[in-house]
């Protein structure tokens, strides 16, 4: 079912070619009332890093998880609005969320490696999808690990338990694991919050490298990271989208007073 939206005089498909996701009027309330969203309107551009920043509890994670329907796992009291991806509103009940989650992958704040080998972690998502071609999986495995800048470090120990890797390596494994599914969008929720500066740097470098081929939405764990990474940045406060602008502008010349206060550290 392709979306048809009338804007002015023309019918357009959502999202348009320059964007991967289009969020329209998204509102969400959890049953415990925390971290809700109010009427979010946002377009996520392709092949760029879009950063969602703002104070804790403001709804950034909620917004992120709406993009791959991971919110379904939590008790949601109310949700309205649309999130358009490839011409479909993924918030519709009829959506194939399984397929969605392969195309919109997620990396979490703490590296969560599955209790299996490195190889097992990498092929897990593919096996879930019913992939049986071992050669194909091996190819994807190597390609993804290279893209996450981890291949050289693990290529000789693919059958070691994944838990034997360091924290930074584990997080890069989580990134590679998502890449193995060949997604279009990668969501990252404070991916470097537990990592040392060296590992953080490696992850950030990988993301810069990857953005030419993927669409990346990132929740940073510091304003400095936001400034380093953002091609575009959206300031989220109390569930509302306050301001969206290219990275170069929003941290130096924010238009909204609240954005300015946050960027300058007056609250956090």
């Amino acid at each position: 079912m392709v979306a048809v939206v009338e804007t002015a005089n023309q019918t357009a498909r959502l999202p348009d070619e320059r964007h991967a996701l289009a969020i329209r009027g998204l509102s969400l309330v959890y049953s415990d009332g925390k971290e809700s969203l109010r009427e979010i309107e946002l377009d996520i551009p392709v092949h760029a890093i879009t950063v969602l920043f703002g104070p804790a509890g403001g709804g950034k994670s909620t917004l992120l998880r709406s993009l791959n329907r991971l919110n379904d796992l939590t008790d949601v009291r109310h949700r309205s609005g649309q999130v358009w991806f490839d011409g479909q509103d993924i918030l519709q009940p009829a959506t194939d969320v399984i397929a969605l989650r392969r195309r919109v992958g997620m990396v979490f704040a703490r590296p969560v490696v599955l209790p299996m080998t490195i190889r097992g972690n990498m092929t897990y998502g593919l096996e879930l999808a019913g992939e049986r071609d071992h050669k194909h999986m091996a190819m994807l495995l190597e390609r993804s690990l290279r893209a996450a800048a981890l291949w050289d470090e693990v290529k000789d120990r693919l059958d070691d338990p994944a838990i034997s890797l360091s924290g930074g390596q584990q997080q890069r494994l989580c990134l590679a694991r998502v890449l193995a599914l060949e997604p279009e969008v990668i969501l990252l929720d404070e991916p470097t919050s537990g990592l040392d500066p060296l590992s953080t740097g490696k992850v950030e470098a990988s993301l810069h490298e990857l953005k030419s081929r993927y669409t990346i939405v990132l929740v940073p764990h510091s304003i400095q990271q936001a400034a380093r990474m953002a091609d575009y940045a959206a300031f989220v406060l109390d569930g509302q989208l306050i301001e969206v602008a290219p990275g170069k502008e929003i941290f130096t010349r924010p238009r909204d007073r609240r954005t300015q206060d946050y960027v300058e550290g007056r609250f956090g």
Partner: protein
Amino acid sequence: MAASPPILSRRRYQIQRAGFAALLMATLVTVVPIILIAALILWRGAPAISWEFLTQPPRQGMREGGILPAILGTLWLTLGTGVLAVPFGVAAAIYLAEYAPESRWTRTIRVAIISLAGIPSVVYGLFGLGLFVLFLGFGTSILAGSFTLAIMTLPVIISTAEEALRSVPQSFRVVSISLGGTQWQTIRRIVLPEALPGILTGVILGLERAAGETAPILFTAAAFFLPRLPTSPLDATMALPYHLFVISTQVPGMPIRLQYGTAAVLLVFVLGMNILATVVRSRARARRQW
């Protein structure tokens, strides 16, 4: 607590020392008999244990020969109980831990489990007699006994399995879902394998209890003496705990040696399962990847 601080009076420490000693004494009174009981039964039962004892049926009204039918009977009943109780019990645990949201229904289920756990074993025997032996017509049989023991073992299996499932970190499930897994795929590939040692421990302990119980099988499965070994689940069977009961209370002139021997075999069976469960538990803890 290294040296006594000068602030506190010496008297208080004397009281503490005496109190701790008293607690230790009480603990010893509790614990030492356990060791003595086990040692006594093994020591006095060992002389009776021979190849003949373990592989031959009894003769002369139980006073001679072996206890093979009883050993086999207990094995059959334990197996039957496991086959019936484990699929139901583990599935119920999966339902409670993974699928069901907390609601009035899940609270009712939990109350039901607590109730089942509290029913005296002889009442299970009564129920088994009424339902399986008489109403459903299984007769006194391994089948009736296994069904009865299975329902009795269900609460133990459900509780330990649910706890084992819940102990698997939630983050695994979230990751699996985010990679495009269904809930069942997540359970089958990650949660269940990781919870398996805990579930296994619970199953072993549940079956250990079922193996040692007499009352539930008194009128549902057990026979005093059978001329042949059971050949089908609809046959009655001898069983170790029942055999011990009979030869110690109802056979005049029963050699004490053989009574101890039977008790020893039962003890070894039960202790063996206990040790097995402990081994499973500690090995799993060592190999855990989280």
